[in-house]
């Protein structure tokens, strides 16, 4: 404990597992902006579909219930049961992953984190950038690496959509024919090595939908609280007028 205190007081980083900063994007200078719009229900539905198909097999969203998601996103229960629940869970159950923790540890060396609150811990921008910056790396165990989260254990699950990326190769000549200085492979930019089933724009849109859904997942109350907050403010503003008039009336007597 004394050593711990000393380390903290000295401001030294503790261990190699220190979490990433909230808005720092690993090797990238900054995270890409992403448009979050929780009123865009089709986007949330598309994101939910991607989530249950590609994320939920390994990651849990274990503070969230299927039927709450269904109610909020306008997905009927029968559709929910048919298309979105693959684990034999009931609609009122929490969205737990199908993968057992022990298996995860064996296969991936580490248990995939729960994603319910990932956009509140990291940030929507971080998640959006992370999802789009996987690249081929034969040195890593999974064969994949990520610019935003270097040496992450997670493989590129959506490589069939995005294709394979690699660090941008040095260019000997610029477009207009002027010679430019040779540069080493940049660690900040990726280029397509093998195209996937989707174009870059399509993939970006899908990842935006997924991020949008993850923001919803982090706080379903967000759908309500802005709306209710406006009514509360209107009430208080009207109340303030009367409270002020009452005060003025009484204080007329004070000389």
């Amino acid at each position, binding site marked *: *404990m*004394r050593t*711990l*205190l*000393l380390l*903290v*007081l000295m*401001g030294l*980083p*503790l*261990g190699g*597992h*220190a*979490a*990433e*900063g*909230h808005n720092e994007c690993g090797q990238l200078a900054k995270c890409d902006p992403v448009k979050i719009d929780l009123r865009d229900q089709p986007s949330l539905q598309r994101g939910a579909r991607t989530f249950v198909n590609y994320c939920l097999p390994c990651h849990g969203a*274990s*503070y*969230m*219930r299927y039927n*709450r998601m269904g109610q909020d996103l306008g997905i009927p229960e029968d559709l929910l049961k048919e298309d979105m629940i693959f684990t034999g869970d009931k609609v009122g159950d929490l969205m737990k992953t199908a993968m057992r923790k022990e298996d995860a540890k064996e296969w991936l060396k580490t248990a995939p*984190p729960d994603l*319910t*609150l990932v956009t*509140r*811990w*990291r*940030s929507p921008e971080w998640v959006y950038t992370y999802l789009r910056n996987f690249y081929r790396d034969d040195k890593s165990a999974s064969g994949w690496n990520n610019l935003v989260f270097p040496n992450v254990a997670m493989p590129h699950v959506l490589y069939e959509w995005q294709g394979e990326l690699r660090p941008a190769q040095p260019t000997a000549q610029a477009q207009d024919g002027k010679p430019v200085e040779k540069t080493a492979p940049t660690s900040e930019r990726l280029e397509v090595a093998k195209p996937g089933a989707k174009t870059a724009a399509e993939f970006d849109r899908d990842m935006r939908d997924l991020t949008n859904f993850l923001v919803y997942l*982090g*706080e*379903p*109350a967000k759908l309500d*609280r*802005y709306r*209710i*907050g406006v009514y*509360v*403010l209107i009430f*208080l*503003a009207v*109340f*303030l007028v009367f*409270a*002020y008039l*009452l*005060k003025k009336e*009484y*204080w007329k007597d*004070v000389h």
Partner: protein
Amino acid sequence: MNTKAGAWRRLLGWVDDRYPLSETWEAHLSKYYAPKNFNFWYYFGSLALVVLVLQILTGIFLTMHYKPDTGLAFASVEYIMRDVDWGWLIRYLHSTGASLFFVVVYLHMFRAFLYGSHRNPRELLWIIGVVIFIALMAEAFMGYLLPWGNMSYWGAQVIISLFDAIPVVGPGLAEWIRGDFVVADATLNRFFALHVVAVPLVLIMLVFIHIVALHKVGSNNPDGIEIKKKKDARGIPLDGIPFHPYYTVKDIVGTTVFLIVFTVIAFFIPELWGWFLEHDNFIPANILQTPQEIKPLWYFTPFYSILRATTSDMVAWGLTPLVIVMAALIIFSVKRARTRLVTSAIAALLLIGFYFIEAKVWGVVLMGLALGAFFLVPWLDRSPVKSIRYRGWMYKTALTFFTIAFIVLGYLGTKPPSGLYSLLAKIGLVIYFLFFLLMPWYTTFDKTKPVPERVTWK
């Protein structure tokens, strides 16, 4: 109508014969005379009471769903946020209220520095207030552990380990507080008990006696003069007005404005960009993964900065000269032999201590003194006037520097202590303590203006 009013009067009479109901109402509200010249700074007392009630009410509902168990705590908070009807609102009101409680209390305390509200005859009132402030810090610290997020966990780990620094008894004491060798289930359970039962009881009792003490001596006012010195034939202060209805209706206005600010935060920006709810608290406590930066919530960071700024360099090049200069100053300006002797002895002890005891112990000591110094202010302040309106440039300058130092220290406490930031925190620390240490001198020599007989009004 008449019979109804008559029945009401009879009922009241019946109660009054058995309980001092009308008497209490009159003594503390309808015939409690407060100065009529209260300004903006006088809203924060009643606002503190509003927030206290709000915290207790929302806290009761949170307690109905929260589980103080390391395996369940984090999930139970998310359960409140999702599955409990209006749970998200209750939780955000409680988390926003916690931070705004400190905003209100800091402004309430600042008011005392502006208008000398801690001065004779209100020293005891002030002391009770400082005790409330410290109890509130304990309440906030323990409440912060309960969501069992990663920052909760590591924050508690670091702060409790401060007790380790105390020589001899430290390690045993820290273990006794945690109930384990690290922050664990035993710690969470006892913090829950203390947060929801013990400390709130203490707080409520202290707030009660704070108000009793206030009503004994009467409120100060922006002019810092005693309205009780000028009374009319009936014994009512000429510049006083009954608290009810005048200040009840005025405080309703203040409370409404405050609730608007509260609503904007709780409904639209409950995290306040990481200042009220930290990002690292959205992952459960993990003993294997420290947050990148372990830092307490904003209301503790001025004191946390003081703790961190006390490095061995600071002890050698900052505190050592400070002690020598202060001792020389006291010996030079106080003629009594005994005072001089005691001062020399304390200074010598401190200097020996600086040499033999490691810096982090002094960090903990300074953090304690940073709070303890508030107790002494009524006696450190030697000015013949109370209000800043009639003080000279010295006090105004000192208070300005202190306020800036407090805010800068608070900001630096949220940042890693490197290079320039570390130096600034050391300077801030010296300014913070000089405000208190030099107070007897600058308040004595400050040139004051004449104080009016009656309060200035409109």
